[in-house]
């Protein structure tokens, strides 16, 4: 089967929720990355067969956001587009969709990416208030209207926070942070270990600032267009362990270990990848950054969703016919420090490998090849985007250091894991 080339990729800087990008819609972020990808590669937009974007919060004013991004980016209206949603793995899902379509010979050239504006996830009205407002619009006479309005109680005015609802698993009823607490307890991961991991993420991200610049298009954000945002604004200069240690556990205030400091940041950002068959890349005279070798998605218990990578990684290795030691660089998304640490422990455990039949496909992961330029704890985790960002970051890293193999993996809200092996 034909190899799937990732020709080039670009992303916006990642900005913490409510900061520089708060007035950029998800579709605008996606448009910026996509258009820049077209400009930098110089590819004629008509060469694109389809546009696929991952997005989690699915803004109400941009239904099928991939189509909106496609049109805003100047891709011909005749090119179709669709949006995918696999929660935190939506960005990977978009890339994998492109790969599958190429292998099925549905097309040969795709733009796949992810976009998320967590700043713009709305608050919802309470159900009671919604009903009153609906009745109000039906009321005909003034007394009727007054009567309807009089039913409003102060409690009804409390909005439901969209972000919180999105991060809460409807099946197990837990917010993501609590699922991380489950893993911390199960694997005996201490607060200190988590904080140290978080600090390392910040230090690596700060060290890698100029390197990461290679994958970033600076953005001059509205409404003031005052200056350009050229870097991710998540990594904290002068972050100290003591400061992290002072933070109160956020999800389980009494006995928890997960704090906002050792969790991923809530962030806005988008990434776009140009994906083509190897043949098409040659025709277009474009040199690929690398290729998709294999991918895997797995399911796990929703209340242990953070363990996903520990299952996805051996499974994808098996698919690729590779061993962990064949992999030269690894990115595991840092949804929570404890969750990454739990995955590392599981992968390093013979009992775990035996229990799930992963023998030969697990082992200890060298921290020196893991998340070398920091992860979501420092850079942020715009949920729909991260999967695409990991592919991009990994490929740039592999090219920089002339590495042949790389593996990326994420845990997925709702209890899934995803992993992709990249090669050059």
């Amino acid at each position, binding site marked *: 089967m034909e190899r799937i080339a990732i020709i080039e990729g670009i992303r916006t800087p990642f900005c913490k929720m409510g900061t520089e990008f708060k007035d950029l819609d998800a579709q*605008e972020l996606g*448009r*910026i990355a996509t*258009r*820049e990808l077209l*400009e*930098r590669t*110089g590819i*004629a937009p008509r060469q694109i067969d389809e546009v696929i974007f991952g997005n989690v919060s699915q803004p109400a004013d941009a239904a099928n956001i991939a189509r909106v991004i496609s049109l*805003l*980016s*100047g891709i011909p209206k005749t090119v179709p587009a669709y949006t995918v949603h696999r929660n935190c793995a939506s960005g990977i899902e978009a890339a994998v969709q492109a790969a599958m379509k190429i292998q099925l010979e549905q097309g040969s050239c795709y733009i796949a990416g992810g976009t998320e504006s967590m700043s713009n996830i709305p608050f919802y009205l309470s159900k009671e208030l919604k009903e009153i407002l609906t009745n109000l619009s039906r009321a005909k006479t003034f007394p009727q209207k007054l009567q309807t309005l009089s039913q409003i109680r102060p409690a009804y005015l409390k909005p439901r926070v969209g972000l919180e609802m999105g991060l809460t698993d409807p099946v197990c009823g837990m917010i993501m942070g609590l699922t991380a607490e489950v893993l911390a307890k199960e694997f005996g991961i201490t607060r200190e270990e988590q904080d140290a991991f978080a600090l390392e993420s910040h230090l690596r991200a700060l060290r890698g600032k100029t390197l990461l610049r290679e994958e970033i298009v*600076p953005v*001059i954000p*509205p*409404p*003031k*267009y*005052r*200056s*350009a945002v*050229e870097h991710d604004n998540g990594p904290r200069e002068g972050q100290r362990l003591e400061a992290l240690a002072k933070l109160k556990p956020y999800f389980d205030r009494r006995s928890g270990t997960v704090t906002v400091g050792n969790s991923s940041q809530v962030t806005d950002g988008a990434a776009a990848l140009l994906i083509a068959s190897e043949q098409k890349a040659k025709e277009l005279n474009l040199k690929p950054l690398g290729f998709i070798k294999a991918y895997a998605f797995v399911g796990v218990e929703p209340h242990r969703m953070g363990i996903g990578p520990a299952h996805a990684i051996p499974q994808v290795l098996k698919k690729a016919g590779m061993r962990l030691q064949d992999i030269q660089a690894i990115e595991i998304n840092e949804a929570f420090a404890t969750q990454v640490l739990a995955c590392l422990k599981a992968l390093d455990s013979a009992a775990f490998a035996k229990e799930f039949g992963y023998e030969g496909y697990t082992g200890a992961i060298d921290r020196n090849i893991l998340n070398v330029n920091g992860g979501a704890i420092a850079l942020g985790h715009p949920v729909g985007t991260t999967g695409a960002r990991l592919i991009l970051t990994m490929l740039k890293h592999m090219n920089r250091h002339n590495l042949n193999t790389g593996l990326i993996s994420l845990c997925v809200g709702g209890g899934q894991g995803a992993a992709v092996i990249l090669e050059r």
Partner: protein
Amino acid sequence: MSITYHENNNTGFIEFDQKDSKVNLLSAEILKELAAALEEARRKPHLKALVIASKKKDVFIAGADIKEIEGITQPEEGRQKAKAGQGILNKLEDLPVPTIAVIDGVALGGGCELALACQYRLATFNEKVRIGLPEVNLGIFPAFGGTYRLPRLIGLPEAMTMILTGKPVDAKKALRLGLVDRLAPQNGLDRSLNEFIEDILKGRIISNKYARRKARGLPAFLETSFLGQWLIFRRSVQSVLKNTKGFYPAPLQAIAVIKKNFYLDRTKGLEAEARGFGELATTAISKNLIHVFYISEQCRKLTVEGVSPARIEKCGVLGAGVMGGGIAQLLSYSDIWVRLKDINYDALALGVRSAAKLYRDAVKKRRMKPHEAVVKMDKITTTLDYSGFTNADIVIEAVVENMEVKRKVFRELSAAVGPQTILATNTSALSVTEMAKETKDPAKVIGLHFFNPVHKMPLVEIITTAHTSKETLASTLTLVKRLGKTPIVVKDSCGFVVNRILLGYINEAGRLLEEGLSIVAVDKIMTDFGMPMGPFTLTDEVGLDVGSKVLHILEKGLGERFKPVDIFEKVCARGFLGKKSGKGFYLYQGQHVPNPAVTAGTKPGDGAASDNEEALRRMLYLMINEAARCLEEGIVDAPGAIDVGMIFGTGFPAFHGGLLRYADTIGLAPIVAELNRLRDKFQAERFRPAAYLMKLQDEKKKFYQ
């Protein structure tokens, strides 16, 4: 025959299809044919309705024949012409059967008035539908009953706006105003028309056309009360005076006529209209405005024979300053992708910010929907390197006005762009040929001189070098027209046309100031002449540094006469750069008064060498003389290009017909004599009449012959 009559199912159809023409015009000839057709219809008692339509694509009737208006020499002749048209349209209005105008395209001037005389109007959803009365632009007003019928049909305030601004409305607006009764899809128009006729016959639409619109609340009060109407008239006069400074009589006369005939019956009202028209049509201003219409239409229709222009989809813009940012916005507004490059992100942010502000204002003023602004704004992307330039169709360079920098930029560009890319420079005075030398393909190099502020100024000077190819010119012309600008084509030479003529005048204003005339006095001389602003106000707007820089370039290229006067150098050296620095010839912080520091060291006012009339002649005749030199050197091929350039590039008063038309009005002999006199008086070579001017004078010719 340009008008045909036929019947179908007891409905009469009068169809306009002017011979050998893309459009229908209401010429005297065609009016006669219309009269005959109406007479024929009147004699058919079995008719249930009469439809007036056009067989031209996207055109109902484009207006009257301007040549006929231009030919009117006596007020009485004008009155008679108006009466003749009115009589025929009255006949139409008085037909006993329902009459319906079917408007599937432009219905302007007389075309609009014809539709107004019908009892009903049906327009289509065609985007090309434009209905309006643009007569004021030609120094006249509608005189086939337009001033009588329109206020009655759509209400006084809206009618005044349409007649006084001359701006046409689209189909949707026309429906909202009540100017048309219904919109129908173009597809299946026959069926829609039949339904419309059915509805009319069944009485579903009020038969009195003036009674169909219902105004409520305050607007109704304003329209129906005498006091309200008085207020509307008063406010209209004020706003016209504010916009035209009283230089244009037509809108004021239009108000006067409407104010009269609004209270008269049709016969008397139309008589007032015809008389007013006759007076206006014979004014020099109307003739001048018609002249300006012709020469600007000529420029707007410029094409290059034998080559097909390349389609421009994407444009690189170099430099995100005032001009670069403005050009980027203009391009994006016309749905062209823009790759904006500068040397740092602060500079880029400035350009993006200025574009965003224009879009925000447009949304605020409801000229654009928010989503339209987003889509257009999204067409601008920024970069520090040349990425994205390879597949640009054109690059417009707007970096600092310095030949060394421009050369370097063109060298870089030539390596960065593709073989299809046109390279344009937005220089205001530097040699395009010099820049072209730095490129691999000088045939692709051209000058595109936009004026500041880019979104407002309607002129673009297109500068061709000896190497510029026909294809390059054709594509660039198409682009400029697509941007909604009026092009003039100029051969590469120092200062091109507009700046060359303008700066001699500014420099002379500086001399007048040195000689003792005050800043305010000199500015007033020119605003009284009709310029939108005086030379010092203009210089403050543009920036003294910019003006002085261009003068130096002109001095170097064209000689001594452009040597900047000392006062410019002095003022500039003290950091008074104009509006942008808060101080120039005027102060811009707090009170807007002349900057006392500028004239501190000069002679007192009573020692001035020229009185106001002479000062005006010095400034104007120098411009005329320089324009003659431009024609002499063959930089432009016709005086029309210069007049279009000066009117749309510098605001030279259109009611004078342009600089050279004005010269023709004065007469070339008196101008040459005065130039010679000034030359003797001031011992100044700059007043020596150009050879071209002398030649025209000797041959007793004019600029326009």
